């Protein structure tokens, strides 16, 4: 399923959907002929796009606004927080090439604090699909939802054979081993699944969890993972602060659950710019590297 095709069919079915872009055409390049005046390209001005989306939403529209994830979430941050967050307007933000998917663009384009920023806005949904199928499946539900939403856009092929339909706020549990739980989101599910296979081959039963939405988070599943295994491992292409590791810590504290948690993230530094396979290798996020890092964490005292 293509994101673009689902967005087109939803927009044709529902007059209220407006597609906006700050000249980020790649994920929606074929939509202008079908949508006519409901496709609005404002040029390279993210703040104005968000302000305009708020105005459209005030008139009953559901704007779906596209830009590169770093410029969308950071350049326009105060507009998002003030115009969409305070007013709780149902604008859907689609961040292109988030995290490692910015590849060789360099730190300016690395959205690796986007989850922290968007999660910090009350009422904002944060959805991180594992692949394009999951994104496309989620889209109609996100358009129905009355809250603003940030989507970590992902155009990659299916990461795994999915087991559960998309439900906002619900994680997908892909295996139910009891030794270690791997919690992840976005395309890294692919690498985490590869790591899980390697670990299983070495006799380590894995609970593999695809978080899907980081706000609202599936707190019950995080608690179940903590109670049902001996070690929680969070895996994310994000800074240490404010992402999944922070989320898990908040949830465990809130529920009074003690657990061993081993975070795999980018710490406090930008990643080495390169093509994606080289990034995964250099940053030690490939399935093989992840499996080795999890084994090391399991063996640590």
């Amino acid at each position, binding site marked *: 399923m293509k994101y673009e095709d689902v967005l087109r069919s939803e927009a044709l079915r529902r007059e209220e959907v407006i597609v906006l872009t700050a*000249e*980020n*055409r*790649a994920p929606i*390049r074929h939509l202008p002929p079908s949508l006519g005046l409901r496709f609005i*390209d*404002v*040029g*390279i*001005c993210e*703040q*104005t796009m968000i302000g305009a989306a708020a105005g459209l939403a005030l008139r009953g529209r559901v704007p779906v606004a596209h830009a*590169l994830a*770093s*410029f969308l979430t950071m*350049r326009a941050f105060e507009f998002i927080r003030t115009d969409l967050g305070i007013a709780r307007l149902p604008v859907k933000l689609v961040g292109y090439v988030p995290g490692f998917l910015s590849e*060789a*663009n*360099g*730190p*300016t*384009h690395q959205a690796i604090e986007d989850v922290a920023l968007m999660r910090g806005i009350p009422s904002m949904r944060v959805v991180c699909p594992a692949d394009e199928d999951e994104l496309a499946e989620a889209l109609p539900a996100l358009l129905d939802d009355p809250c603003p939403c940030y989507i970590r856009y992902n155009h990659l092929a299916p990461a795994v054979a999915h087991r559960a339909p998309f439900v906002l706020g619900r994680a997908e549990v892909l295996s139910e081993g009891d030794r270690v739980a791997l919690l992840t989101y976005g395309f890294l599910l692919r690498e985490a699944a590869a790591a899980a296979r390697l670990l299983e081959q070495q006799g380590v039963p894995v609970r593999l969890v695809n978080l899907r939405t980081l706000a609202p988070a599936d707190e019950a599943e995080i608690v179940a993972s903590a109670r049902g295994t001996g070690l929680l491992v969070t895996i994310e292409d994000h800074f240490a602060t404010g992402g999944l590791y922070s989320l898990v810590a908040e949830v465990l504290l809130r529920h009074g659950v003690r657990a061993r948690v081993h975070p795999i993230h980018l710490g406090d530094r930008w990643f*080495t*710019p*390169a*093509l994606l396979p*080289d*990034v995964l*290798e*250099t940053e030690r996020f490939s399935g093989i590297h992840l499996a080795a890092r999890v084994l090391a964490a399991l063996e640590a005292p």
Partner: protein
Amino acid sequence: MSEPRHDLPALALAVREHVVHMATRGGCFIGASLSCADLLVHLYTRVLDVTPERLSDPDRDYLFLSKGHDVPALYATLAELGYIERGRLAQHLSPHDSIYWHPNRAVPGVEFHSGSLGHLLAVGLGVALDIKLRGGKNRVFVLLGDGELDEGSIWEACLVAAAYHLDNLVAVVDRNDFQANVRTEELIPLEPLPFKFQSFGWSCRTVDGHDFAALATAFENLPYAQGRPSVVIARTVRGKGIPSIERRADRWFADFTAAEVEALLGELRGEAAATLETEGLVVR
């Protein structure tokens, strides 16, 4: 001005060859790199008071590349003029070097990182302010893209630069008529662009950005008005030098095959037009 006197067309050709070599194995933003190649060659050899030995000299002229995606042209110019090793260009996109799709200030000659559009006119303004405060005579040049002029921060910086009478600040617009994916005038029209800058308190000249004689005249007479920042609007062609990709919306970013690179290098030297199988891309 830098000595010795360079053969500018030959230097520009060498820069373009480097750019084409970078447009494979992951690719680069070739269109904008080729449109500003003559501008960068001219600025570095005839205008900027800077050398590889003076990159820490506070009295040097500064050049900020605000439209950072054209950095292949800057790296190639820096390599040809001895700021960095030519061999480093072959490390483009390698995780073992630091030359990637946008400027990295760890590379000698790169004054600041960019890639997020609309940042460096403000940064250049800050440098120009400090030069004024310290009584310096050096100048600050900021290379802007025309698509980049969509960003509101550009116009905020224009207001502030005029308010502070920064006649040591020079914006150079690479007016290649394209946003990433479409023509500027078809999306967010900029014309009459000189009037926009003038009404913000800047003095303005328009010049053919591929004509070295015209560029010499335009850059010899700065500032155009005492007490006002200057802007040079350089009319350029995206993809300049390779007719088969010139003014093509879908040849903004390119990741060509090795054979296509060879054909494009031939076309650059005046041979037959390259046959391109690689699909055009819409990236941004």
